[in-house]
């Protein structure tokens, strides 16, 4: 100690050198800080750009035009028998047959004509063809009228003010997603319909309503304005459940065995290397594997969330195993020794003391894995989950698609200017699901940490 002070005091040039180097070091530090701040700003800039683009494109799609129409249930068009009532002495089967016959009659009614007449009555001064009126209203709205009538046949002859969904093309036209100055031959709507839509929009007969169909309907092609995400969401939900039920126990159990019990030898080294490599395998390869093993070999159905869940489980396992092992490795050895020193068996030490400490870590790993799986598209394409499905899957074996795949499908839809905002809306919903998952992870994590 004394030697160093003596020598530095003796040599003044040393001080000069230190001073010079000090300036250099400070400059290096300032430079690095500037680089750091610059990188953070660039990253934040990209995130802001991404989110603002998506929100800007997607938010309008959460509102869609609806047309208020006084619908007249015209008895001249609805020519059906009175709704059958259960009669005395009639068997249940007979009554059902009669009801079905009646419903068939109702279906045969030209409901489009009802809509056309009702809309025409709203604009008596305009000369409109049936096709031009029909272009205004979403085609599936006729089924809504039919269903209303089936429930209450008393509507016959009455006039009911209804909010009918405008067609996708009207949506595009009113929101300005198509160039309004384009010529007639390049517009999606006939000229008369465009004028009618503008007029209705101005006098408030068309208003923007919240697009609840986005959340309550499945995909649809003949009624794109009604296409929703519910089917894809349920498919994703099934897959998420399958991933949680399979990947977490299998992954955590393997991690515990490998980390705490397995002898350290060549075989376990090999397994470790393989697990680490599996985490880096492109996800589409897992899709190929799923197609070959689950669909070709085990003959599981195509497009089924079960198969998707299995594939995503395979994909998530390495993540869960690696993260769980890291969490176990971070537990201080003194904790294990404390338990072992008391005479706890190896598994008692692990399950009573080591594992509870790692719960927050395992939980985070699980949610990260699940979130990754939820957002995965590529492997699902190879097992047929990019199918066009209009029914809700009631079991994991039914055909279904998934949220990211639905985004992929909509992005590729030929009705570009309608589906582009809708795709952005679907992306917002997917991101919201992710956000909720992560929020749950953070809440659960902090709760576990408080307990520990």
């Amino acid at each position: 100690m004394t030697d160093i002070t003596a020598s530095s005091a003796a040599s003044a040039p040393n001080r000069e050198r230190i001073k010079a180097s000090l300036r250099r070091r400070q400059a290096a530090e300032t430079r690095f800080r500037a680089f750091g701040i610059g990188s953070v700003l660039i990253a934040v800039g990209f995130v802001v750009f991404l989110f603002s683009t998506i929100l800007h494109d997607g938010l309008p799609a959460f509102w869609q035009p609806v047309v208020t129409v006084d619908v007249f249930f015209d008895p001249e068009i609805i020519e059906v028998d009175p709704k059958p009532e259960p009669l005395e002495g009639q068997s249940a089967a007979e009554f059902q047959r009669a009801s079905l016959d009646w419903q068939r009659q109702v279906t045969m009614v030209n409901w489009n004509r009802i809509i056309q007449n009702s809309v025409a009555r709203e604009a008596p001064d305009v000369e409109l063809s049936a096709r031009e009126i029909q272009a205004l209203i979403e085609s599936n709205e006729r089924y809504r009228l039919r269903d209303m009538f089936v429930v209450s046949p008393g509507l016959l002859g009455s006039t009911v003010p209804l909010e009918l969904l405008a067609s996708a093309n009207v949506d595009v036209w009113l929101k300005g997603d198509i160039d309004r100055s384009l010529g007639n031959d390049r517009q999606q709507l006939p000229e008369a319909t465009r004028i009618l839509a503008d007029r209705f929009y101005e006098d408030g007969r068309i208003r923007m309503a919240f697009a609840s169909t986005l959340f309550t309907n499945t995909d649809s092609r003949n009624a794109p304005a009604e296409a929703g995400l519910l089917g894809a969401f349920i498919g994703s939900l099934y897959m998420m459940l399958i991933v949680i039920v399979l990947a977490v126990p299998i992954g955590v159990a393997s991690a515990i065995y490998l980390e705490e019990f397995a002898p350290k030898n060549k075989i376990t080294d090999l397994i470790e290397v393989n697990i680490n490599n599996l985490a880096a395998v492109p996800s589409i390869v897992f899709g190929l594997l799923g197609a070959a093993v689950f669909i070709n070999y085990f003959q599981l159905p195509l497009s089924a969330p079960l198969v998707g869940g299995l594939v995503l489980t395979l994909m998530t396992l390495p993540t869960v195993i690696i993260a769980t092992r890291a969490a176990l490795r971070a537990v201080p050895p003194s904790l294990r020794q404390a338990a072992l020193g008391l005479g706890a068996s190896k598994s008692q030490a692990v399950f009573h003391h080591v594992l509870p400490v790692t719960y927050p870590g395992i939980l985070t790993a699980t949610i990260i894995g699940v979130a990754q799986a939820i957002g995965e598209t590529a492997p699902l394409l190879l097992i047929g989950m990019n199918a066009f499905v209009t029914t809700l899957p009631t079991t994991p074996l039914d055909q279904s698609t998934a949220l990211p795949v639905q985004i992929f499908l909509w992005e590729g839809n030929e009705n570009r200017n309608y589906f582009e905002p809708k795709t952005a809306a679907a992306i917002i919903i997917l991101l919201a699901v992710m956000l909720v998952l992560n929020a749950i992870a953070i809440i659960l994590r902090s709760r576990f940490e408080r307990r520990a």
Partner: protein
Amino acid sequence: MMFNAPESQKMNTNAAPVAIADPKKVDLPTGFKTVRTPDPEPRPVRVHADDVCVFYGSKQALFDVSIDIPEKAVTAFIGPSGCGKSTFLRCLNRMNDTIEGARVEGKITLDGEDLYDPKLDVVELRARIGMVFQKPNPFPKTIFENVAYGPRIHGLARSKTDLEQIVVESLKKASLFNEVKDRLHEVGTGLSGGQQQRLCIARAIAVSPEVILMDEPCSALDPIATAKIEELIDELRANYTIVIVTHSMQQAARVSQRTAFFHLGILVEEGPTEMMFTSPAEKRTQDYITGRFG
């Protein structure tokens, strides 16, 4: 209690010339015989070790250690860092089993029973030979749960009240009860270092072991906490056989009845503590104890 903190500290710094046990660099005294001085009034032997050698991989850490550990007395292991005293301590409850690549040769018996008998279950052994570690390592659970854990896994308590009684008794024996009686259900990691270490002792006592091994139990504690633990060790001696590894010669002198001096993996000398600290037979012991080691 002859306790003097500044001197003990001074002793520590003076007497820790680090000597790493690398047998390749040292001329091993082949056929070296440990110098033994029996007690004037011999105590019954509880643990008996015979020619124990320990290897970590290809490296030998202990060479032919033989020792008798008497009942209801404190035996202190002293020696410079890396001399193998902790390694030997860990052989006594087979904690070396948990170290990858560790191998133990020779024979260790507890009441004549071979500890390394393959038929013997280490779980049962460790219930009979408890251990307290260098750094206090309570479980991140409540104070009650910390102490209750051992009796619970070994099925020592017949009922809930039984278990509560064991916990209270153990905490009392570890002279911790009065300090924590109002917060038995708070986390044990919230206690001070010294309290934590006494909690660890209570936890070890709760399974009523016959032997308690202590691996430098005070090295992470301040002088006052150390004094309390030493007092406690002195009280526990009446009922338990205690083996303590310590870096502090003062501590060894204060708490132990017998002292064993290890150096470079060899048990150099062992004998009654008073004799070891006043007139050791070996020159090396003398040098270490007087702090002239080198």
